[in-house]
């Protein structure tokens, strides 16, 4: 176990050096999400101003609530997408030859992908996280049942995100066209996860697809706990599903790593998909 923790610490340093102080983090994790958030808000505004909208969705009638609903979506999406981005970068290690050096070592492969994901998350998303907390506090839009729900919201965002990162890392290490997966997990992810719309507005099949991604349920918990005064009882169903998804993602990551490495040992190529 202590070896695994050392691997996680080592990955943290690597991510810190890769990302800290890089202008890309500032742009992709703060500026672009904010610009996109504003554009999304204005794009849906005409609909929200229609006479029937507030009856169908109370949030629609209050621009501040609408903006905080969309901002919560942008926050969670930024967290999850930062892991897509870091996994994409991880796949570059195949080209630079360092991936081979990792596979030469006796380090646990699972510790490597978890460490990489967790470290990328903290390096990437702290900026937008801080910004969102500050903005939400200043705008006085947070409605929490009791202080413990802050912790619930944070855990519901972070733990599944790390599992998601471990899964993506395992997948992209062995992927031939990582750029394609990267694209696939960019726009379609926000669409199916209800980042920009309440889930009830989505067709059933989109909702079903969305449930497979932890972002969807993380977002339900985040919005419920922070914006709608929901308590643990209200959120039991999404929290339970989130726990199941998290376990499933870790299991899938572990299986992918084993299959991928065995295949690499057989064929000599690290590309599986």
């Amino acid at each position, binding site marked *: 176990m202590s*070896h695994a923790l*050392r*691997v996680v*610490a*080592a990955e943290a*340093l*690597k991510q810190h*050096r*890769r990302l800290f102080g890089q202008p890309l983090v500032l742009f992709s994790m703060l500026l672009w999400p904010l610009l996109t958030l504003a554009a999304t808000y204005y794009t849906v505004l005409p609909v929200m101003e229609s006479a029937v909208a507030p009856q169908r969705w109370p949030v629609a009638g209050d621009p501040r609530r609408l903006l905080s609903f969309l901002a919560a979506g942008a926050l969670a999406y930024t967290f999850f997408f930062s892991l897509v981005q870091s996994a994409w970068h991880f796949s570059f290690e195949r080209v*630079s*030859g*360092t991936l*081979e*050096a*990792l*596979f*030469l*070592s*006796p*380090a646990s492969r699972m510790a*490597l992908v978890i460490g990489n994901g967790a470290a990328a998350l903290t390096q990437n998303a702290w900026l937008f996280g801080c910004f969102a907390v500050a903005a939400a506090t200043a705008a006085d839009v947070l409605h929490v049942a009791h202080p413990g729900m802050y912790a619930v919201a944070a855990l519901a965002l972070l733990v599944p995100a790390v599992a998601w990162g471990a899964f993506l890392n395992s997948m992209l290490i062995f992927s031939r066209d990582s750029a394609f997966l990267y694209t696939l997990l960019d726009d379609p992810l926000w669409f199916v996860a209800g980042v920009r719309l309440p889930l009830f507005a989505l067709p059933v099949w989109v909702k079903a697809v969305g449930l497979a991604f932890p972002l969807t349920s993380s977002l339900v918990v985040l919005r419920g706990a922070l914006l709608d005064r929901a308590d643990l009882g209200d959120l039991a169903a999404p929290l339970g599903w989130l726990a199941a998804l998290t376990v499933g993602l870790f299991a899938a990551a572990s299986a992918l790593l084993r299959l991928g490495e*065995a295949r*690499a*040992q*057989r*064929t*000599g190529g690290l590309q599986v998909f």
Partner: protein
Amino acid sequence: MSTGIVTTDLRKTFPVRRWQGWRRRPAAAPVAAVDGLSLRIPPGQVTGLLGLNGAGKTTTIRILSTLLRPTGGTVSVDGLDVVEHAREVRRRINVISGGERMVYDRLTARENLWYFGQLYDVPRARLRARIDELLDLVGLTEAAQVPVERFSRGMRQRLVIARGLINDPAYLLLDEPTLGLDAPIAHQLRALIAQLAADGVGVLLTSHYLAEVEQLCRHVYLIARGSLVAQGSPAQLAGQTVRRHTVRLVLAVADPAVTAVLRALAERHGAELTVDVDDEGRPRFTLRHPQDLVGAVVTAVVQAGGAVAGLTVTPPTLEDAILTLTDAQAVAVR
């Protein structure tokens, strides 16, 4: 328990898939990269693995280092099977490949070594001292805190070498380690390899620089198309070949009569003759023949009235051995 790395009848075939219409299907005959190779790499000496490009050297090293799984045969490291006990084997070995890959640009030299030290689970108490030792060994102590992206090529390669030693490996697999290195650094690395072997490390060396192999290796395996062609000490291997002596003769002044005599002599013996000029513009004759023709050449030149300005005779080398032995094998396969 047998010590050393021992391979028995090692085989590795790669599945080859070819486009067939819209689908890729396995080709009828998979490509054998390593075909029945039995080697022993004992501790405390440098063992050479030679062969032309594509002979299977890198595949062999990748199997020994657990990156590839053999299709047949066995490999054990100090009695541990590389497939069954991959993790334990990984602790005992390391690989250094030529070139500048395998280190992180954004990390400093010290951070790279620290990172890999964590991955190899080098005891905490030991790691700091080990990093200092290695930085000193490869001459990067001054540059320890500089990110690798600002390194010169030679500095990167030296860091790659230090990375390969971070876990104090009992066995070190060197795949063209001096490829592209500056002469002084290559010289230092050879001294280091010899020292490591003297300290008990088992080293496997593949290299295109045969002088390096002749200098360092006590035992050499020569492979072609994944199979063993010959083995022995470098001197023994060189002796196994059809001997090709090279006589190089420089005349003080050009003399058509001497040229004619030498051409006739070469034709008579069936020797290969090339005529060019040396750095000072003097005519130079190079004769290659299984027999040492130096006596006949000198006699002929003197009789024709030529003035000899320089004369060298080179006995057959390891390079000749590789060329002739692998050629013979290629012919036999065809």
